[in-house]
């Protein structure tokens, strides 16, 4: 018995000792995640392609329903100008009074723009460092061009909304980079111009059908020219107009489509007039408009919300729709075919995007692409750049007339008539351009950006502007305060180096 115990003790002791040795194996602490990491990614072309599409996917966040009409980030694009108004009371993007740094929609838009920028910077860094992974000719340049373009678009928006937000062009890898300073002047726009300029040299003229919707050299040149016109407005620099004209001149093959409505219809997306669109769609499982694009592949929002125009009952949840201002209604000649393409003149409800819309499975958001830049916009910008750079007035008017010609061709033929190319009063022509932009681009989320830059330029004044709001008595627009939307509290509260915009 004693022998047995001794033996058993030896066995047990060795088991225990074995266990201690086992426990000592510190290698066991090196667990790794069961999903891909940065170190194990970017090993093949397709990884780069996915990361590049990941930048595009952020665009969903700019335009979706976001769980409720009161939180949809599309509103700051559509509402602030004088083309669209609403009966919704306390709507700060119509009335401005209660537009505060705590505003949820702005805060959301702000952070999502920087997320897009972050994704673009990461792709640019990875492309910079890759060696020999790309084998498809030109693909590396195209991806780089896409990343640059999308970052430029984000900075273009940030400048137009906030003006002074921080400029980030390096990947954030250390906590010392968390609190960059704000910017001044047109620094954000400068970056956009820089990015568009480089992108234009890298991007292809077109993509194959399967990749339709990705940005092209035309898109980059278009946004480059547009940004240059914007900077010219803000800084009153003639050289930018000249540069803009040079960029626009590089656009090839774009034409005005016969029916302007094809620019707002779900089944004529990415057409000949289109230079860049947000590709709205629906997830194959379900377009879950309460969950963002990043949530999942099968469900999540790939859609856009046009319910403010279509007054879709489910989506709107009783909120007032957005409709045309009386100013917009009155800006059209009654025979201008664009009038009814834009709105129902009887009640000013919007037809653009709403009439030839298609809802996703969610039955409240839509798959109808948002046209970020189309050729008619470029033509009017060319008119403006030509005019402002002391170019030929006849050439400038000619650009406007291209737009009016297409509009006229949609109807019986008389209106809108061409403007006289004999007109030489630059002020008059500028007024034509401004009015034409209102009529042509109404409701497309361009108006506020235009008005803001023209005010900065001194061509118009927004002091005490009422923007033709349907709730004129509630209008509380102040200059210069509201020219710059407030930097959101989410940034101000944690970044002492960013200064809040004046007045907030």
């Amino acid at each position, binding site marked *: 018995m004693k022998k047995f115990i001794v033996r*058993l003790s030896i066995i*047990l002791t060795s*088991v*225990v000792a074995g*266990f201690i040795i086992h*426990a*000592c194996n*510190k290698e066991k*602490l090196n*667990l*790794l*995640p069961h*999903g*891909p*990491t*940065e170190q194990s*990614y970017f090993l093949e072309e397709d990884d780069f392609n*996915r990361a590049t*599409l*990941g930048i595009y*996917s952020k665009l969903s966040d700019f335009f979706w329903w976001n769980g409720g009409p009161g939180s949809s980030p599309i509103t700051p694009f559509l509402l602030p100008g004088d083309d669209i108004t609403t*009966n919704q*009371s306390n709507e700060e993007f119509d*009335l401005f*009074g209660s537009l*505060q*740094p*705590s505003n949820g929609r702005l805060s959301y838009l702000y*952070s999502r723009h*920087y997320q897009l920028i*972050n994704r673009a910077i*990461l792709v640019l860094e990875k492309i910079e460092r890759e060696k020999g992974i790309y084998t498809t000719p030109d693909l590396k340049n195209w991806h780089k061009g896409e990343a640059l373009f999308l970052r430029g678009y984000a900075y273009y928006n940030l400048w137009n909304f906030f003006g002074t*937000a*921080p400029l980030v062009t390096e990947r*954030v*890898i250390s906590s010392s980079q*968390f609190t960059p300073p704000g910017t001044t002047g047109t620094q954000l726009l400068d970056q956009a111009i820089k990015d568009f300029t480089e992108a234009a040299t890298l991007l292809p003229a077109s993509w194959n*059908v399967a*990749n*339709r*919707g990705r940005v092209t050299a035309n898109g980059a040149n278009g946004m480059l020219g547009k940004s240059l016109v914007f900077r010219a407005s803000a800084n009153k620099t003639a050289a930018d107009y000249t540069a803009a004209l040079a960029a626009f001149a590089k656009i090839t093959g774009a034409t005005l489509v016969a029916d302007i409505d094809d620019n707002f219809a779900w089944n004529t*997306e990415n057409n000949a007039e289109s230079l860049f669109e947000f590709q709205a*769609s629906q*997830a*194959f*499982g*379900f377009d879950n408009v309460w969950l963002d*694009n*990043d*949530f999942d*592949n099968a469900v999540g929002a790939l859609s856009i919300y046009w319910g403010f125009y279509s007054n879709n009952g489910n989506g709107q949840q*009783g909120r*007032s729709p957005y409709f045309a201002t009386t100013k917009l209604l009155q800006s059209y000649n009654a025979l201008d075919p664009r009038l009814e393409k834009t709105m129902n003149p009887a009640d000013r409800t919007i037809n653009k995007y709403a009439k030839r819309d298609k809802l996703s*499975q969610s*039955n409240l958001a839509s798959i*109808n692409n948002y046209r970020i830049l189309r050729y008619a916009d470029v033509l009017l910008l060319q008119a403006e750049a030509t005019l402002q750079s002391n170019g030929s007035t006849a050439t400038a008017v000619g650009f406007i007339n291209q737009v009016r010609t297409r509009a006229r061709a949609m109807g019986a033929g008389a209106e809108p008539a061409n403007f006289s190319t004999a007109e030489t009063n630059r002020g008059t022509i500028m007024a034509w351009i401004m009015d034409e932009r209102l009529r042509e681009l109404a409701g497309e989320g361009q108006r506020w950006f235009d008005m803001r830059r023209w005010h900065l330029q001194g061509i118009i004044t927004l002091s005490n502007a009422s923007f033709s709001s349907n*709730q004129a008595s509630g209008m*509380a627009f102040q200059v210069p305060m509201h020219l710059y939307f407030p930097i959101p509290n989410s*940034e101000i509260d944690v970044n002492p180096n960013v200064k809040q915009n004046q007045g*907030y």
Partner: protein
Amino acid sequence: MYQNFPPTLKKLRVLFLLIFFSGITIAISAQTMVSGRIIDSASGQGIARVSVVVQGSKTGTVTDANGNFSISASPTQVLLVSNLGYKTERIPVRGTGPINIVLAPQISLLDDVVVIGYGTRQRKDVTGAISTVGAKDIEKSTSMTPELALQGRAAGVFVSSGGGDPQARPTVRIRGVNTFGFAEPLYVIDGVPMFEGGAGVTGGAIGDIRSPVNIFSMINPNDIESMTVLKDASAAAIYGVRASNGVILITTKKGKAGRPRVELTSSYGVQNITKTFEVLNTQQYFDLVRQAYAANPDANTSFDQRYGPRYTTSSPLYAGNNPTYDWQRELLNKNAAMHDHSIRLSGGSDATTYYLSAGFSKQESPLKANNMERYSIAANIDSRVSKVISTGLTLRLVQERALVNTQGDLPTMASSIPFQPFYDPNDPTGFAPVSRGSFVRNPSFDPSKIDAGPAFNFAPNDPTLLWGQNSRFNVFALHALNDNRFDLNRVLGSGYVQIEPITGLRLRGTLGGDWYMNLRKSWSENDNWRFSQTPGNPFANQNGQAKGTLGERRGTTYNLNKEVTLNYTKTFLTDHSIDVILSASDQFTRWDVSDISGRVNFTDPQLRNITNQPPFTQGFTGILQEDQLIGYMGRVSYKFKDKYYLDGTLRYDGSSRLAPGQKWDYFPSFAAAWRITGESFFPKTKFINDIKLRGGWGRLGNFQSAGFYKFLSGVVLSADYPLGSGNGNGVGTQVQAARLPDFANTTLTWEKLKTINVAMDATLFNNHVTFTAEYYDKTTFDIIQSVALPPNTGIQNNADLNVATVKNTGVEFQLGYNNKIGAVNFNLSGNFTTVKNRVVRLNGGTPLGGEGGRIEEGYPLFYLWGYKVGGIFQNQAEIDAWRSKYNDASIGQNRTGGGYTYRPGDMYFQDVYGNPRDPKERFSNTPDSIINANDRSYLGKSIAGYYYGFNLAANTKGFDISVFFQGVGDIQRYNEVRAGLEGMGGLANQSTTVLDRWTPTNPSTTIPRAEYNGRFGATRFSDRFVENAGYIRLRNLQIGYTIPASVLGKTGVIQSLRVYGSGLNLFTITPWTGLDPETDGVPITRQFVFGINASF
């Protein structure tokens, strides 16, 4: 308690030791039979089930129902007589005649054996800060989960019940709140550290997969012998990197040597919610919304146009004359039943003891469509195989089922529109629909595609809401059409082998494991859409024949703990005792999930299975969390003459969570104690019986505050972008994209805690009073915060950074009083804890968190931060006076009088601070006449400043009564529900308090006038809705009667029998205006319970 044995017994040396439980050592002897009887000093009656052991031997027995025993012992030996609640007696055998032993109820707790980590100790020898709750108090709790038994019973332990929902997780915080990260204590069940996948997370995907069911409810409280809370570092350092939030040691019941004993406990009770929100009836509701809209109509839109036919007086659909439906009362499950039955069998021989138990428990929620039931089996066996080897095994099997289908809580019901009915006899389901619509076939439906599209679409202009814009989903229909339940199965156990080659040296290997699977089955019927206010197309993503969707999700948790301990105890030179423990441990935990959902063509529950119908079946699997911990620990305890004590602990821990180079850290602690009454100079008096001073210092860690792999940057493939649309194709092809949302922090280190503990334990007034006072000072540093990085970084996921320091200080008092007056035994006990919590340092001094839980230097964690109400304008003169000085920028006002124009009845807010005057300031302390975000200030704290519990008990002649109060004070909460029910800005129903709203004829000073979309911003986060959430609650009143042994003796079977009735939460005194200061969602219930405890 570790004893050294006299040399005469060396031959019969100790063979068996129950380290975790009794610490009683037994030696062998065989002499003559000695018999006797053991009587209670108070009642004079025999005491059943008293353990009688020959000291230093393995011979032991227990008394019968009348207190009689017989045992073989030699005249030179000593009988050790012990019973829970009585003083242990050591009676020399001397002769062979009967021995009558009188046991006095235990007054001094000093001889109690308490569980400490890796061992037990007599209470008088404890040097660290610990609290213990025993089986007697645990049994009084009716909760299915053991943590609630700690509420009010243990000093320094704050427990907030999760309310009346049986699945709810109580919140347990020990001595304040250390961190804004992972703040849950470590639970150790019979030596196995528990792990719960997703612990501490309630939101997001992890919180969802973790499920709402509290996993600790899978431990049957009836099986628990004691719960010990290790509160300071000197007590908890043995658990090192896991211990900074405190450690709760759960020790389950074990068998005792003696003849088999059967215990039966059975109780039945009912519970009810006693209060609901008072809300407006239909008439009052219509008056309110009309008035509110009239105050601020949308331009060119009338009330009728704005809200539609249900709100239009002239419409045939007008709802203003409908009856009022009480949504809350309809949701109540009146007299919700609570069952708890368990049977336990225990006993053993000299060599082997066993314990078996089986339990069934079921509780219905006080709200409909929710319940939980548990079947549990536990088995424990401890055996001395030979003189040097002993072994033991504990195993528990649990099945728990929960129905979680309530779909709403009382605040949701309270805000439902009062005219919307729940039932409709004309609807085939019997429930009143919420939406209506018809369908048309979708011509582009193509099931051969991944995106098949819906087989049917809603007809144009459908669906429509039947009860207007604020239609509320019909929760009662969803009870019938949906089914959401959880099945949890668990195997939890541990086994050990111990060898003791020489006396006092024990080498033990322990293997502990826990495996549980949580299966969620969620069913939702297609018809659902008709009862939803956001009706989705039920035919989306299915072939058009399906009747509903079934989802099955399994979460599996795997926890394997291996440990070796070497323990040596020795007393030398009579007065010097040492106790040394060395340990190595290795724990691996994993949590994985599989999820599948698909369409089902039948509604019959019998036929609900997910079949493979591509593309309509979806699923995924994955490992969600994995942890590897390796730890080495050493503890040395030295004691001189029960007078001086020294303890030192060092733990070295490594974990897989951090970056290479950061994985390992040391956690040391020291403690010392001095029994001042043990000194010869200390006068022996009747008033001061025992005084011990003790103090400790130590460092602990919190590995769970670090997220997983935060030192790596992950790639997530869940972003998508569609390409290729055009030429008639509007959808395009969805392409999977990649995103890298992380900030990889390779310098992340453990969050650590330093504690200082100083205490005095005293026994006073002839052992009638026990008193403990403790002071604690805890500093958490390198706090890991999951920081939402500034938006400019574009980094989507929160990053883990070591950013902050938080300090908790406070005192704890425990007082006990025992006495006997006449035939009545009295027992009073109480405890009181204070907490002062301060954030000392934050990254860059930058505050974190929002208004409901602000984190800022110099303030308590999670304080309430918002505006302060100035008042309500009663007339234009007041407005003019105010406006001449101030402007409220947050509602668009400016200095020149622009922006919103006040009207009488509007609420205004105070100008507390000013805008920053230079870039270094976040705000200026000087008010600037502008009301804006900079005027938000401290409104209250969410961590209780003090909490307490006290218990009064008495017994006489078989009757016993105990009254237990528990309370919390110096705490404020934001009454979110009231904020919703008094906002008056929309169509939701409101509290009856708004009947007192300001009108020209009712110049209210507390509730402003009603205005649709409230332009003056009265619902902003402000002190208007901050309330004192302190309370004192009569937690338990129990009256019991124990049938005298003389009566039971005649049955010959039943040894003891006690019947009792309890009332729980009979009343609560609180200034809180909601349903309950702990939670308003499913508030705590009033319960009446009747039960029986019997042993055979």
